[in-house]
């Protein structure tokens, strides 16, 4: 298993190269196609949404300028505040659930145990399924009338997982975790494989047991993998839409109406495109701030070439 090379990581260094035109080799122009697509399909719509967030539009007529009033109304709307809070819970609990499991699985998968490959394939499977299929499957499995609880002995698991407003959010977090843990485990596996065996040999000589090896060799060496994985996890759950939409559609009541769903339902069910755009801009801002914060906190601004696959 080799380091996962992410093409996006190479792009930011290009402007630097562009300044020094005289240099030979790959130039800034090689990044142009990627940047053009990025501008066309990410930056341009983003600008459009920003403009739309100051307008009133029901999707039918001509958008009408409404100014900052729409921002004030949307941000003071109880439904938005609730959705924000719910999103915070969703992101934090998702992280607390996914990060440790993914880390431990990744470390296990990087090992040399017997049958490890078989286990790894099994752990990897959820990554191959479409999230809509996963959503429909879990909805059926968790159905108290026709789901797993009927197949197993009566009583076991027959809780109303997705129908109980107090449980639904956590049931959704579990399914989302089930879906995304394999990807992060894969990152960690790659990271662990990059750690030189000599470090462990030295640790063993120093008398470190398995737990101490993990604590003092594996974890510090995985530092940048952890930053990458955490950023993807946090921003990913902040913007998680498809699974939640298929599983609960934001219900029961408003129990799983996190920000992305709130945006969608406002835009494409209530046809209030202005407020929906406000929520979209809010999501972008929070997502960016979160990524920057993580980078700052983890000191990855000083991140240099490392053996870990970050």
């Amino acid at each position, binding site marked *: 298993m080799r380091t996962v090379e992410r093409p996006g990581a190479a792009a930011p260094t290009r402007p630097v190269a562009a300044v020094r035109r005289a240099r030979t080799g790959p130039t800034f122009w090689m990044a142009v196609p990627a940047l053009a697509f990025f501008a066309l399909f990410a930056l341009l719509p*983003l600008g459009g949404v920003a403009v739309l967030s100051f307008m009133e539009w029901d999707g039918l007529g001509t958008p009408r300028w409404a100014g900052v009033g729409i921002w004030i109304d949307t941000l003071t709307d109880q439904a938005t505040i609730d959705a924000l809070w719910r999103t915070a819970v969703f992101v934090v609990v998702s992280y607390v659930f996914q990060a440790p499991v993914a880390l431990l699985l990744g470390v296990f998968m990087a090992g040399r145990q017997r049958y490890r490959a078989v286990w790894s394939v099994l752990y990897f499977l959820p990554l191959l399924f479409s999230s809509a299929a996963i959503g429909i499957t879990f909805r059926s499995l968790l159905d108290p*009338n026709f789901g797993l609880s009927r197949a197993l002995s009566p009583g076991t698991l027959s809780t109303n997982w997705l129908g109980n407003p107090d449980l639904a959010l956590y049931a959704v977090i579990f399914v989302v975790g089930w879906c995304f843990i394999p990807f992060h485990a894969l990152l960690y596996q790659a990271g662990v494989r990059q750690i030189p065996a000599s470090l462990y040999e030295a640790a063993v000589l120093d008398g470190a047991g398995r737990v101490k090896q993990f604590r003092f060799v594996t974890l510090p060496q995985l530092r940048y993998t952890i930053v990458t994985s955490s950023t993807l996890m946090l921003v990913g759950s902040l913007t998680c839409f498809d699974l939640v939409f298929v599983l609960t559609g934001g219900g029961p009541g408003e129990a799983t109406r996190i920000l992305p769903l709130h945006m969608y339902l406002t835009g494409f069910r209530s046809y209030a495109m202005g407020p929906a755009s406000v929520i979209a801009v809010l999501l972008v801002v929070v997502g960016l701030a979160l990524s920057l914060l993580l980078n700052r906190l983890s000191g990855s601004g000083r991140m240099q070439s490392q053996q870990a696959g970050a």
Partner: protein
Amino acid sequence: MRHTRLRAVTTAALAAATALTLAACGGASPGDSTDGSTSGSDGGSGDGDQSAVGGEASAWILTGGGWPVTAASFERWNEGNPDQTITVEEFENDAFKEKIRTSVGSGEAPTLIMNWTGGTLADYVAGGQVDDITAETEDLVSRVMPSVAQNGVVDGATYAVPMNDVQPVILYYNEDVFAQAGIEVPTTWQETLDAVATLSDAGIIPFSLAGQSVWPELMWIQYLTDRIGGPEVFQAVLDGEPDAWSDPAILEALTKIQELVDAGGFGDAFASVAADQSADAALVHTGRAAMLLQGSWLYATFHADNPEFATSALGFTTFPTIEGGSGDPANIVGNPANFWSISASASDEAKQTALDYLNEFVYDEDQLTAMLDAGSVPPVAGLEDRIAQSDDAEYLEFAYGMVQDAPHFQLSWDQALPSDQAQELLTNLSQIFLGEITPQQFVDAMNAIL
């Protein structure tokens, strides 16, 4: 230092933007599933397309239910009129609703615009996006039951004509379950409460309810409000009268719903039942639930999913009466039908083709036969004899009579109201069923957005 700083910021920005873009893709996918095929077809009908020859038109329809009958009708048209064909695209219900609105708004709509009338049609008319077809469709409208046809009328002019079966909401029940429990199907509210108690004690869910889909919950508040206070109560809401939701009939209806929930009327897991997989019907035909309040389209579902049950033990009746209520117990709620409107942005040739299709093929002999064979009720007067000879005579006579005798046919509230109010209504109603808010909180929340 500056470089690495810039790099960190850009990396973070890229990561976040990528994640957001991915989320956006996920969000759009339900509506985009047929994107590739539709964008090609509606180009021919857009305005400014001067070179449209032969009057080619387009139409979008739905899948499932009785829609194959409509698809077949277009096939017949295209066979008979090869020089003015109508291109048909099929959509899943939710995907259609999302896509049609943006295409109508951008002037890219198909020639024939399907709608449920109500708030959406009013929006189309206000925006000048559909044509007044009063004169052109007089003949067709005169054949249709007035209670159905009137839904396509806005400000005295016809903007939409019905095109498929009438869809009243019916109370289905499992005869075997009632026989085992030794009770009769309830006809009054008191009998309903008694039946709920008896059935619950026997471990049977009295009423199956697809609470996850929320819209089936509307049928309950619609019928209860109509039975208690008559159709005027909701009409006041539609008219936007201040505090219209505060009507005592609505408060009583909400209170009765919560009483029924508390009494176990819908079991304890209704919020997990989804209508799009017909899980609510499955609970009834597997004998786990006794009754189900749902649209007439479920009759075909019962026959498809469990023919044995449907022919032997499927019962159907009207919603119970409410003691002391002032509404006529013969009133019904549901969807009068789906309707065709003609896009104002279509070319004249395309419009002519669409009008010819409406006048010659909607509710013609072949379509009526196909509808009756499929167990659906055409909203056309004078079909008694044909219905009596059909395979599903008992059910069709019941549904047909119900529609014909109804003094008032209430369009589903979520269709009748403007979209933003409809969405708020669904959210608040689901919270009423979950017991998260009180009837008064519901009324206050709904009054606030009137």
